[in-house]
């Protein structure tokens, strides 16, 4: 079965410090992995994705994520957090072998950047 786990409901970080939002996944085949951000009263916005190739992928707003196959993880990172990064972050996975094209989302991590 395919699934995504975001073990932290809430992450707090001081402005200017590095941030990490954790994600682990489970798929039968190889994964397509995505991060989305949701601001209050707004739709989910795409941040970055891993399909194949380099394990470190860079995305919007200075975010990056590292694919680790052995640990089945895809943690979101940013070297220096901004107050404006405060939002709800979702990790999602799709199994390359899934002909139904279903995406599975985690339960989300609320990030608060403290000024």
């Amino acid at each position, binding site marked *: 079965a395919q699934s*995504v786990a975001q073990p932290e409901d809430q992450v707090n970080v001081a402005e200017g410090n590095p941030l990490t939002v954790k994600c682990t996944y489970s798929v039968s085949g190889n994964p*397509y992995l995505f991060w989305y951000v949701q601001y209050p009263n707004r739709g989910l*916005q795409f941040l970055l994705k891993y399909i194949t190739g380099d394990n470190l992928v860079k995305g919007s707003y200075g975010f990056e994520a590292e694919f680790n196959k052995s640990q089945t993880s895809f943690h979101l990172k940013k070297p220096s957090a901004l107050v404006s990064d405060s939002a709800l972050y*979702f990790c999602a996975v799709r199994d390359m072998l899934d002909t139904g*094209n*279903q995406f599975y989302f985690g339960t989300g991590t609320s990030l608060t950047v403290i000024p």
Partner: protein
Amino acid sequence: GAGVSQTPSNKVTEKGKYVELRCDPISGHTALYWYRQSLGQGPEFLIYFQGTGAADDSGLPNDRFFAVRPEGSVSTLKIQRTERGDSAVYLCASSDIAGAREQYFGPGTRLTVT
């Protein structure tokens, strides 16, 4: 260009009533998805269209839920005999093709069943 739009933004209905939720995807996007998001949860897959056909409807919770996309653009999610447990935010997303492409989400329709 215009993003994904959803109407209405909010819908309050009584238990047992029928509702329709509309999604207008980004022009030219052939793949369209419906999700349901309950409070404190991530989006839960309901159905995926490729063009006019429902390529995967395995996420629909029961036969009270149905969705159509007759011309391969606008889609309507239909819920019959609504129940209080149907209350959630219903999200629509589209992508230019299926597979590894990122999805573009609409703002959602908040459905409340009283």
